[in-house]
């Protein structure tokens, strides 16, 4: 019984982490129709930035935020310099982002070496917290809290602000949004920076749980992909629910069927694809 609760707690924490990663992926995919295959790499390079900042004496949260900002700038450069040249050319975008992900992976290997780097849990968050009589690692509770706060923040941004209304208009009908005077191309850059920044931030936050290693990008990208396909692209609620579904599937799959963990993870996605191709919370393509 206790084991199940701990597993469930870990699943929720992992889901929170996945949400930080996939919310940006989903927005970029939904708004800009860009299949950003560098998303895992952006998260990994963010995590590596974080390790360097922490090694240089920076605090954990400051390092996470700084890494997020750094990756947001990198994302903005990628969007402005490369993806901007390829509007609507999906295949070209797939290839460029894929090529970039290889380059980033190799540069990280050059810069930080091949050994996994641990990110130490901040001292305040070490130890365990008792919730309903069960001890959960405090850090995981903190991750869930941070993810919830950011999810609420994103929700308010998208649903309650002028910028959010413009982004939603851009998602629904970019041509019409342009006609009524919304600068969709500037929105694209903002969304891309935001998504990239969240991915970088998630990389550092995930560090104490996953540690940072070459191949982290290839581990995270499919998870983000599954979340977005499950939840529906461009839908915040979809990525929120999808993240927790994937968090549970991943953790329980690892614990119960370790040999087939990937099948357990991808099977529900395939079922959703067959029954509801636009995802659980996505709208059908016009």
């Amino acid at each position, binding site marked *: 019984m206790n084991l199940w609760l701990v597993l469930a707690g870990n699943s929720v924490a992992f889901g929170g982490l996945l949400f930080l990663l996939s919310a940006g992926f989903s927005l970029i995919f939904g708004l800009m129709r860009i299949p950003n295959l560098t998303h895992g790499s952006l998260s990994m390079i963010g995590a590596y930035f974080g390790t360097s900042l922490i090694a240089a004496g920076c605090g954990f949260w400051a390092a996470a935020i700084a890494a997020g900002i750094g990756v947001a700038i990198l994302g903005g450069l990628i969007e402005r310099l490369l993806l901007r040249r390829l509007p609507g050319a*999906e295949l070209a975008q*797939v*290839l*460029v982002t894929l*090529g970039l992900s290889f380059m980033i992976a190799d540069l990280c290997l050059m810069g930080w070496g091949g050994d996994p780097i641990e990110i130490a849990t901040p001292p305040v968050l070490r130890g365990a917290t008792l919730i309903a009589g069960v001890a959960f690692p405090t850090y995981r509770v903190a991750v869930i809290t941070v993810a919830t706060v950011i999810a609420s923040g994103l929700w308010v941004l998208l649903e309650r602000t002028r910028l959010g209304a413009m982004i939603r208009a851009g998602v629904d009908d970019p041509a019409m949004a342009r006609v009524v005077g919304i600068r969709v191309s500037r929105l694209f850059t903002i969304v891309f920076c935001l998504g990239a920044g969240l991915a970088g931030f998630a990389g550092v936050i995930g560090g104490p749980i996953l540690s940072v290693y070459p191949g982290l990008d290839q581990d995270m990208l499919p998870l983000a992909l599954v979340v977005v396909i499950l939840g529906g692209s461009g839908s915040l609620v979809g990525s929120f629910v999808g993240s927790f579904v994937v968090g549970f599937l991943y953790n329980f799959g690892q614990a119960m069927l370790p040999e087939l*963990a*990937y099948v357990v993870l*991808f099977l529900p996605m395939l079922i959703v*694809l067959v029954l509801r191709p636009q995802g659980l919370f996505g709208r059908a393509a016009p």
Partner: protein
Amino acid sequence: MRWLALSVSLVLLATVPFWVASDYYVNIASQILLYAVFALGLNVLVGYTGLVSLGHAGLFGIAAYAGAIFINGGADHLIAILGALAATLLAAAVFAVLTLRGTGLGFVMITVALGQIVWGVAYRWISITNGDNGVSIATRPSPFGLSLATAPGFYWATLLVFLAAVVTIAIFVGSPFGASLRGTRDQPRRMNALGYHVWMIRFLAFLFSGLWSGVAGMLFLYYNQFVSPQVVALGASAEALLMVIAGGTGTLLGPIAGAALVVVMKNVASAYISRWNLVLGAIFVTIVIFMPEGLVPGSVRLWRWAVDRLHPRDVEPGRGARQKSGA
């Protein structure tokens, strides 16, 4: 002229082991041919059907793994090859049913996910696939008493398979069915209105493409006598796609040139620099930005442009006149 070029290149290909200095280069030639088979198979889907797959290494790997498991289970080579190809066709059918739910981006994303599943199974299902350590096989086959154990022997066998692939794929895309394939690529709705079963045409193209990927996978297994999860990783699918795109999609020569480029670059690059992935990524980005149509059509375009510049009189009159009035 065309036949002359064709016969000369055939003779050159067939005699590679005689005029090439060492077994090392013969082996590189075998690698080029086996990856060319893979790229040609993928190109049926990418170039002629307009569906970009980033999961084809999964099919390639399924053939290699199935073949290795059959052989290690004591099956005869012929049975192992047939069994592996049957397994690949079955997997391709499942892949096709799932991926053809989407077109464009949806299709790409689903192929990525499927490729990752195959990778996850290869990596994690240790009792069958031996995990990260991979599976080895003891021998190469010796059909009709000819041994494929030597580099030239294997090269000629690969060359035969390669020629079979080129001829079959040329017939396939040149047939009326190939024309309907290009029709579904360019105008799926009109094809549908004309009474063509678009889904079925794509499904069959997927199977055909998967079959040749499986053949290439078997060649790979016999070449290395070893298969590991590395073979089915996303990077492998991306490499195959790079061969197709770099050479030029929707042409026969393109994927072959692309395979040669990637294999040579990989061997040369790994001899001089250890950063193959960086080079691969940079080639990807450069080709997409500067030569989006691929090296073969791109070079043809650049060549025509250069000829136009050097001999302006050869240009058809209408275009030449426009150029002059513009200047």
